């Protein structure tokens, strides 16, 4: 798959949208129920485009009032360049803001491995072609521990076989909804074209729903 450098971060090239494998190092962000207000504070939603979102992930946890760096895994030089985010339970709960996965993606995160994800956040990840895959509590602890002890550990997330390989020949299975797996592998996560192809069927449904015609007898 190709990546194109934009002003901020990378965005996938249009030519081939199929996502089969994500590789690179990982960065752990610990804690359950990390909400999208923490991932990106609402004041950054006042920008009319997503272009600068890569500057803002976890802003209030990474910078103090004066803009100085606070200790945070995303500020930690050891994890610089990581493309896989490791998280715990119910990651991305709260607001539907797509700015949250946009911010992570444009920062350089191309896959998320965690115990579980909130519904809207997981849906937004699929729409952006970011695999969000689940592993158990013990497994995520092992991965986080490994990354902390050796930040250069390389990971390969294979979507087709639902397998995360890491270190020297180790691997574990990951869970992902089958529909999400197919959307990533097919490249149909960017769903507009697929939905638009059915527009005549859409019009047929619209014609038979009674409220669409004002319940006229």
């Amino acid at each position, binding site marked *: 798959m190709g990546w194109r450098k934009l002003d901020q971060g990378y965005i996938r090239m249009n030519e081939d949208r199929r996502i089969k494998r994500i590789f690179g190092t990982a960065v752990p962000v610990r804690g359950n129920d990390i909400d999208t207000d923490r991932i990106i504070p609402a004041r950054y939603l006042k920008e009319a485009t997503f272009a600068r979102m890569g500057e803002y992930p976890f802003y209030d946890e990474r910078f103090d009032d004066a803009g100085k760096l606070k200790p945070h895994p995303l500020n930690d030089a050891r994890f610089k360049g990581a493309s896989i985010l490791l998280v715990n339970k119910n990651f991305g709960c709260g607001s539907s803001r797509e700015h949250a996965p946009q911010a992570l993606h444009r920062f350089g995160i191309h896959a998320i491995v965690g115990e579980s994800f909130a519904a809207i956040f997981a849906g937004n990840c699929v729409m952006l072609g970011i695999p969000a895959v689940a592993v158990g509590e013990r497994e995520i602890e092992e991965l986080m521990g490994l990354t902390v002890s050796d930040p250069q550990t390389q990971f390969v997330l294979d979507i087709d076989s639902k397998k995360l390989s890491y270190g020297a020949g180790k691997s574990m299975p990951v869970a992902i909804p089958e*529909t999400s797996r197919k*959307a990533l592998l097919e490249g149909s996560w960017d769903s507009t074209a697929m939905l638009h192809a059915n527009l005549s069927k859409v019009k047929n*449904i619209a014609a038979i729903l009674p409220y669409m015609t004002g319940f006229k007898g």
Partner: protein
Amino acid sequence: MANGRTLYDKVWDSHTVDILSTGQTQLFVGLHLIHEITTAPAFDMLREQGLDVAFPQRTFATVDHIVPTDIRTRPFLDSQAEELTQVLEKNVGEFGIDFFGLDSDKQGIVHVIGPQLGLTQPGMTLACGDSHTSTHGAFGALAFGIGTSQVRDVLATQTLAMDRLKVRRINVDGSLAQGVYAKDVILNIIRKLGVAGGKGFAYEYGGAVIDRMNMEERMTVCNMSIEGGALVGYVNPDATTFEFLKGRTYAPKGADFERAVAYWKSVASDAGASYDDVVSMNGSDIEPTVTWGINPGQSVGISEKLPRPEGFSDPEGAKKAYEHMGWKPGSPILGTPIDVAFVGSCTNSRLSDLRAAAAIAKGRKVHSGIRALVVPGSAEVKALAEKEGLHNIFTQAGFEWRAAGCSMCLAMNPDKLQGREICASSSNRNFIGRQGSPGGRTLLMSPAMVAAAALNGKVVDVREYLQ
């Protein structure tokens, strides 16, 4: 009927356009609501792809998230707010979408105006780029909060690629004591089932307590479904629903209304519907409830002490909450000092909410040093409240009476907490930084409890005012 169907099943099936190659369902969206925050890039993507809006008459726009609630002259003092508003105005003009702007008597929070205008109807699917879209489920609609790329899909095709959910029936039996409101009911449901408990489920609320609720109370309950992890929450439509809709601007009229009622009745869950899960609780066990932590599941009844972290499935999460809030397990929530009181948000800014708060504030004074705001959910709510004099009750008591918007729920406009301020809030999220200050602290509670806290400068039991 042993194999009856739920409302969820019926509405899902009647809106299914196709099963996609991914296995997702392509679902028709009957009503699309948009606002200034999550839509600008969606329109840009349409232009880039050379697509038009497929059903412009099924999308309605307003401004709510970013608008000032005090001085509303244009251009806004906040240049970003002005820019986003102008972008929306340009987009709705270019694509032919009905728009309820700041000067419209229909302007307001999306989840207040949809129902108020009769746009939201039973048996419908609905989407909006806002997680509290679940509010509209109060009418027996399937209402989805979506992201910006999904907004693009709805604009371009009036459909979404969706995965089917399971359905959990939540019965709230018995009755509510005086001083206990819909807000307390949903806070207790979330406390019981957890902030992630609804993952993969649609919540169907029922039982005697829900049956007796008016539409505004049902909206409060459905509104916070997403805080319990459920993408969708709904109540089966009944006579209360139909009565509410009768005569509303966009509701069917005359013989059409009668036909609509017959259809709306047909979409309700069958008596023998089977559910993937059933949970029951008793309304009489619920007290006025207040959150103490950093997610809406961390709440206690007003007579309870703050819980010990060890009792939680996630002790580390509870410890982080104590660290942010700065108080200790074992202390009472009663008497917790506040700095700010906020009545508003898509959860609790409707006329009945303002009446409940005004009943407490009437003839009394806001405690010295407390900043107290009342922000009606829509221009119409504001007008109706003023017609019955609620604004005078509030202003005489020392509350600020504002114009409609989301305001201090998410602090995208100038209404923000400062520093470590503590806010008694009728909104829906007590997340860290949610109300505009990274160190700010939010206590979620009912509007009547917010009013009582404003008068006392601390958390009190609203029932003291109701005897």
